[in-house]
């Protein structure tokens, strides 16, 4: 059975000058049948999948490399997740961390767009046990 409704996050990178309010107003001007909720990190939109895809494509044009999106499992205002209803937000810590990291990926997208040369970054190594022991000894002596 085709899905009748889709909910999506649109997350604004911290480096963007666009505000959630601007996105909300922009979507309102499109005059489409869609539900919008402003949040601190962007907006949540909900509607028929085709309408959501159309809106998302237009919103992305506002700031392509600083607006990110993913599907959300729960509908807008669901009592099991809505803070107004004392719902829990187990995924919020992840969303917060990814939001903080978005400028890094913005730099990556710009580089990919400009076909910039990317040097192979050496793989990070784990701290050897001997090194950890040395640090522990140093700290214990202080």
């Amino acid at each position, binding site marked *: 059975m085709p*899905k009748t409704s889709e909910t999506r996050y649109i997350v604004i990178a911290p480096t963007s000058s666009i505000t959630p309010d601007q996105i909300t107003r922009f979507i309102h001007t499109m005059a489409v049948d869609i539900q919008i909720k402003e949040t601190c990190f962007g907006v949540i939109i909900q509607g028929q999948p085709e309408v959501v895809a159309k809106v998302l494509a237009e919103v992305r044009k506002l700031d392509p490399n600083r607006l990110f999106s*993913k599907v*959300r499992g729960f509908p807008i205002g669901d009592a*099991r997740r809505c803070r107004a209803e004392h719902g829990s937000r187990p995924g919020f810590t992840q969303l917060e961390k990814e939001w903080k990291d978005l400028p890094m990926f913005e730099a990556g997208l710009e580089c990919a767009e400009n076909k910039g040369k990317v040097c192979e970054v050496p793989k990070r190594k784990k701290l050897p046990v001997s090194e950890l022991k040395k640090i522990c000894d140093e700290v214990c002596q202080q």
Partner: protein
Amino acid sequence: MKVFIVPPNSLILFDLVERFGHKPLSIMGALSEKVTSKEIESPPLNVTVDDVKKGLKYAGIEVPSGIRGRLAIYGPLIDEAEAAIFMEDAPYMFGCVGCARTNEMVKLLVRKRKIPLLELDYPANDEEAKAVVQKVKAFLEGLK
């Protein structure tokens, strides 16, 4: 093509896969059907009998129920996947996606399917992120 992502609820990977023209397979999509389904009395706190059966397809009966329950969601997505991207050492691999044994099983199931696979480390700075995005772009463009 349908691309399975690990962490399966990552905003960044979901966006990159979609941006470069493919369909990401994520747990948010799979769960949205579950949490809005009328069949479950108190979604998502309960599982149905069918979920248990689905989980048994991917892990034995001796495997802890938490892993089986997670695999009941991840398993069908892995079956459906035509390619996969793993981002290792993501700093937010805790909470609902933080079951280390499930994550090991997921990686094993993906590798057993022998589909195109890209393995990356979560970047810590701009230079690493540039390399990650370039690799993801090259991988996804190569799938077409």
